């Protein structure tokens, strides 16, 4: 019995570790480790979990893991289909279909190309992707925007094109004098007619604009209605680009945008930005708003929260988004955020200085809140290990009755540890990618406290799987 429970404990730990990794790791360079190390570490973890806990590996697709890992999981599941039983395959198939529907199309096309390179082309794979392609709202749009992707996908899954027009567009360009589909025809005309390029999606129009030598300013002004919301956000502030609409943006994305502005501009647009952040936070909090009582947060704005060149200011943006989200979750006026640098104005934070997490934690705990949320990459260095000691002493000496619940959310995957870095063994740690997932993550983190076993974890995963599959059907 004891043996069994220990195995259970290890299994539960492995599962949580994988979930943390799948939420945070993107195989890109981080502040402390390079892209190569990240990818190598992540590949190992995927293989380890796939071989040992295949059902859990598939069930992870139902959680809030990031798109990079979702695509990886789908790929690994399809590559190693022969390891699964028929029943497993049925569940996997449903999960894969549900996840593919939620993935951005460019990710799916990239995934199909990876499967093609791996020479995975069985009936099941073809069926899965044929279903996905069949569910696309407009293949004509995909043919223009993801031309190479759709072309290779069509070849790979043996897609019979119902309308010959699309087939001609992809495989026999220049054959038809004109197309009935307006986008396909605009693409044809854009080769020689400048006006036509403004009917195309932004990324495609950009190429044609360069070919026609259209001035960037004119181009940005006229193409704005065709650009997606994120594309508009990216070109915000450039000459000719119209102001982006901040309403309705996801919270973390908005925080990233705010941090991309210079401090002077942030101060000048304080009211607008704060309102937008508050509104996004309320939307993200949803039914949980104002239900968490007294909350304190320790937020990391040390130099390492600058992230890397490819994930610029991501950890800091997550901290900023959590700041506003926790404000919305806590009771009115019952929230206080402690930045490690000592900053008091959240809107003007910037990644600078060392990480004195220990002293900030002490500041936060002193006020006696019901919940303390730490958002940090876990590199506690002023002095090293103090945060862990403060938490240990707090738990063992000052608050053995668990009046205060502490949870640590970490936005950075530590390639060497195959997990996110922890502050103390007694404090549950969860990976976080988007602040919007915070309530769900706090739920998962509770499993890491050791009070819940594998059985409960499996129940939880089953429930999430059922919800997820049902949400797509």
């Amino acid at each position, binding site marked *: 019995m004891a043996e069994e429970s220990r195995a259970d404990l290890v299994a539960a730990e492995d599962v949580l570790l994988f979930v943390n990794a799948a939420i945070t790791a993107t195989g890109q360079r981080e*502040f*402390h480790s390079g892209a190569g190390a990240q990818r190598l570490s992540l590949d190992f973890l995927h293989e380890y979990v796939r071989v040992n806990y295949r059902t859990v590996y598939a069930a992870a697709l139902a959680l809030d893991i990031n798109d990079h890992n979702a695509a990886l999981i789908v790929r690994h599941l399809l590559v190693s289909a022969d390891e699964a039983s028929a029943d497993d395959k049925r569940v996997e198939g449903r999960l894969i279909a549900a996840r593919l529907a939620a993935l951005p199309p460019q990710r799916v096309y990239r995934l199909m190309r990876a499967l093609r390179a791996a020479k995975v082309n069985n009936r099941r794979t073809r069926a899965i992707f044929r279903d996905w392609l069949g569910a696309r709202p407009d293949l004509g749009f995909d043919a223009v925007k993801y031309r190479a992707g759709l072309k290779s996908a069509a070849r790979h899954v043996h897609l019979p094109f119902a309308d010959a027009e699309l087939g001609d567009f992809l495989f026999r360009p220049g054959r038809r004098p004109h197309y009935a589909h307006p986008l396909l025809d605009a693409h044809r005309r854009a080769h020689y007619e400048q006006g036509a390029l403004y009917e195309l999606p932004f990324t495609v129009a950009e190429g044609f604009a360069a070919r026609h030598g259209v001035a960037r300013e004119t181009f940005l002004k006229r193409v704005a209605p065709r650009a997606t919301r994120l594309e508009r956000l990216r070109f915000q502030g450039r000459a000719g680009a119209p102001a982006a609409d901040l309403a309705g943006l996801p919270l973390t994305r908005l925080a990233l945008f705010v941090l991309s502005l210079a401090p002077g501009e942030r101060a000048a647009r304080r009211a607008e930005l704060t309102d937008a952040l508050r509104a996004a936070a309320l939307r993200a909090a949803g039914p949980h708003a104002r239900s968490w009582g007294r909350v304190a947060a320790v937020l990391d704005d*040390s*130099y*390492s929260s600058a992230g890397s060149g490819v994930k610029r200011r991501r950890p800091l943006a997550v901290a900023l988004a959590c700041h506003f989200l926790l404000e919305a979750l806590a009771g009115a006026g019952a929230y206080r955020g402690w930045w490690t*640098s000592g900053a008091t104005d959240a809107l003007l934070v910037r990644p*600078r*200085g*060392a*990480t004195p997490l*220990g*002293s900030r934690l*002490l500041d936060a*705990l*002193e006020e006696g809140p019901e919940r303390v949320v730490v958002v940090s990459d876990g590199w506690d*260095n*002023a*002095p*090293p*290990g*103090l945060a*862990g*000691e*403060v938490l*240990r*002493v*707090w738990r*063992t*000496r*000052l608050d053995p009755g668990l009046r205060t619940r502490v949870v640590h959310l970490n936005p950075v995957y530590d390639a060497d540890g195959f997990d996110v870095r922890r502050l103390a063994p007694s404090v549950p740690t969860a990976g976080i990618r988007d602040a919007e997932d915070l309530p769900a993550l706090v739920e998962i983190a509770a499993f890491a406290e050791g009070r819940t076993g594998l059985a409960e974890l499996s129940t939880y995963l089953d429930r999430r799987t059922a919800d997820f599959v049902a949400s797509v059907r």
Partner: protein
Amino acid sequence: MTALDLTGLSAGPAQVWGGIRLVPLLRAEPVAGLRLHREAYGSGDFATEDVRLNDGAHYTSYIPHGFVADWSGEGTAAAYGTSLGGAAPAGRVALHRMAKRRPGDRLRFLPLHLALEGYLALHFGGPSTLWDTWSREALRSGLSPRVESAYLGADVPGLADALRVFEIHPRQCGVLVYAADALGAAFAVPHPDDYRALHATLLQDLFGELIHQYALFGRPAAEFTARIEDRHVRGTGDLRAAVRAQERAWRAAHDTVMAAELYATSYAFSRVYRMGGFDLWRFLPPFERGGAAQHIGEAITDRRGRVAYLKTFRLSENQVRRGHLLRSLAAHDWHLGRCAQALGTRPEELTRRIRDAGFASLLRERG
């Protein structure tokens, strides 16, 4: 003046990356009236520069940059790589002196080279008393040419990464660089903004052979993590006191154990330049044998002798040996017999040591 007065600079919590430990030096407030700027030379192609010394000798070395000390009190800090108003634009500048006055209250000097030149020129003229053991060559040109080699910071394994991920403290004015917990270099400036701009220049500094080897072969250094004695903690006040005690304990341990060689050694200082209330010095260690770490360096001190700027270089064992040998010979008027007696050895053994140290050309060939 015989010791470094580091009052005002206190050690902060160390940050470890692989075998490199960086200990920040913090100032409660910046030194008033002195700022440092950097002047970049060369195009990064590791070309060597020629510096003319006072007595007609030449000094050739890789010199990436010079520092400009500004005690005019205007307090404008130049950003990394920009030129000061009115000064010549950064680029290849003819270097006439180790330290050269610039228009206004400014002095340009070559960091670390000032110290190295002091070491290289140690008894440079050769034997001062004409004993028949010395060769004619030695009497004519002394120790010329005198050559020492060092490693570029960028070539010290792990140092670049350690500096990249290092989180600079808000009040940080300096850093101590350890490789496998051997102190390799100390660097301190008057103002936190200067430090922020000059942090990366440590990569272009010179490091001794020992540091390079320790960094290459050493195991990752252990982090000194905080430990709180929880038996007497009854409330958050106690916990906070325990945290403060931890910080004090680390500082004391660092200053008395890890950096003792820097703080406690007595140095031979020689003044290079007087600038207003500040003095530019270079210093040499006592060249004691027996394994103790020895640093050469340069410092700017204020009126009360407190260090405003500091840069040191750890000599390798061989370099200490050479310094020791030259010191001993000079102390005994270059008489081999007397010197050997003082060192507790025989003249034959001493000549062997002189040869091994690379000073063979000083000795007359017998037979």
